[in-house]
């Protein structure tokens, strides 16, 4: 993992295709490969869940009418892990309530089978773009969290008060310490956090949910 906050995960995207029908899987895989993207196919939602999702942009092409676990179950099972893995639902019978549920669950698209190739490829591109964003955010969040974890208890206290906008003198009063000591803690904390300004620090605090 890169230490640079602003770099998104690199590499071409991969499309995971989950469909219970072998010919559909083969055909989808061929079509997606013909555009230069990587494809992996799975015969069931269960088989896909066993797969360790790689740290690269990816999206899931999912037939709603799956044997065993329904596509919507998989969507809710993925839950948090889904952030970096947008789902495109494919269905043979696009009924409205199911589409609505899928959309609320975070599906990026809902395509009817058989679908137009351009529509499908556009949907894949949108999903991969969203995946890149999602993964970049996750990576950034993890990096900030690592920096926060490297702070001493005292530095963490100072951190929590700096982001509320307090001056060193006020922080010293709050923590019952000399202003000079606080200044030292603050300097170390800003360095560990690699924050160039209070504004940058507040931004980081917000991203990991530490802002009061």
């Amino acid at each position, binding site marked *: 993992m890169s230490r640079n906050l602003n770099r998104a995960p690199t590499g071409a995207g991969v499309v995971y295709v989950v469909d219970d*029908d072998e010919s559909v899987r083969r*055909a989808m895989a061929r*079509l997606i*490969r*013909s555009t230069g993207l990587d494809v992996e196919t799975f015969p069931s939602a269960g088989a896909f869940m066993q797969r360790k999702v790689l740290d690269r942009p990816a999206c899931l092409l999912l037939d709603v009418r799956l044997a065993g676990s329904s596509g919507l179950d998989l969507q809710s099972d993925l839950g948090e892990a889904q952030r970096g893995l947008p789902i495109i639902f494919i269905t043979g019978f696009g009924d409205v309530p199911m589409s609505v549920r899928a959309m609320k669950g975070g599906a990026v698209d809902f395509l009817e089978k*058989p679908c137009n*190739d351009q529509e499908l490829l556009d949907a894949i591109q949108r999903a991969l773009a969203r995946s890149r964003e999602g993964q970049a955010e996750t990576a950034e969040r993890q990096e900030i969290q690592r920096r926060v974890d490297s702070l001493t208890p005292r530095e963490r206290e100072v951190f929590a008060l700096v982001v509320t906008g307090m001056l060193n003198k006020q922080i010293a009063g709050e923590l019952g310490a000399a202003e000079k000591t606080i200044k030292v803690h603050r300097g170390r904390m800003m360095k560990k956090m690699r924050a160039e300004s209070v504004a940058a620090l507040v931004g980081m605090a917000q991203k990991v949910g530490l802002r009061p």
Partner: protein
Amino acid sequence: MNEAWNRFAQENGGDPVIVGVGANYLEVCRRAAASGDPEAPKALEALESVLEGRTQRALLEYACHSPSRVRWFAMTVEPFKRPEGGLVISHLDITRRRRAEDELEHEREELTHALRVTTLGELAASLAHEINQPLAAIVSNAHATRRLMESATLDRGEILLGLHDIADDAKRASEVVKHLRALFRKEHVDQQPLDINDVIREITRLLGKDLERKRIWLRLRLADDLPRVLGDVVQLQQVILNVVVNACEAMADDDLRDVSIETTRLDPGALEITVEDTGRGVEESELERIFDRFITSKAGGLGMGLSIGRSIIQAHGGRIWATRNKDRGLTMHIEIPCPGT
């Protein structure tokens, strides 16, 4: 006026002066009718007919829903046998009975719906999926091979594989259709002697309330000398139900809504069922096509009912066809042989 009446009047916000002791019930009804109460004119007519001696007894069931409760009452009006005249009016709370009737009707509706959707409808949906899967694969493969041919690398092996898969999937789709035909061949028909009139009566019983609500007038002209048909009661019921439901739906937007079902004995050894509607009908050129198309003019319909229906009738050795009526609408004809009669 008893305690129950007073309690009821108060719960309904009735002013004791207006609906209480000493009030003129005729006046109460007149006032209610004038204020637009849909039940009041009927009550008024019942009261007046007994008062004027046109009838000895009037009975009326009416809804009286308070904001908190749904209630039904039966009102009986009889002359008060005293020289000064007058009426004896009694109200009986029949809510429980009405509720039971409503539930029965609800069950019937569900059954009708279940019959429609779980057999022909469900079959059609699962067939649609079975056919759609290979079609989806064919479409994707066709797009993929086209892209591969347009690309600079021209991967011949992959293109050939794609074309091969297209042929295989097309074969698979046609297998599904073949399988569908086999499903309704003679060997799958349960041969039971049955009275087709009974089958039709059962269908009209199932559809009864539904038709009433849609203001469709259903006429039955059933021949009483019908020979028995050897066949599968569930399948035949499905076909006739499908035809009748189609007839009703064809008239949804029209003002004239008549459906008549007729049975006739044909010689030798056959019978004919006709279902005639006053709906929008179809063009002469479409009469045959309605039996083989998979698409439909109905929103959300799969349009496979009639094509499956024809397979069922053919499996019974019969035939089904449609004719245009002289004035308007369509008549569906089903002819079924009755061997040994």
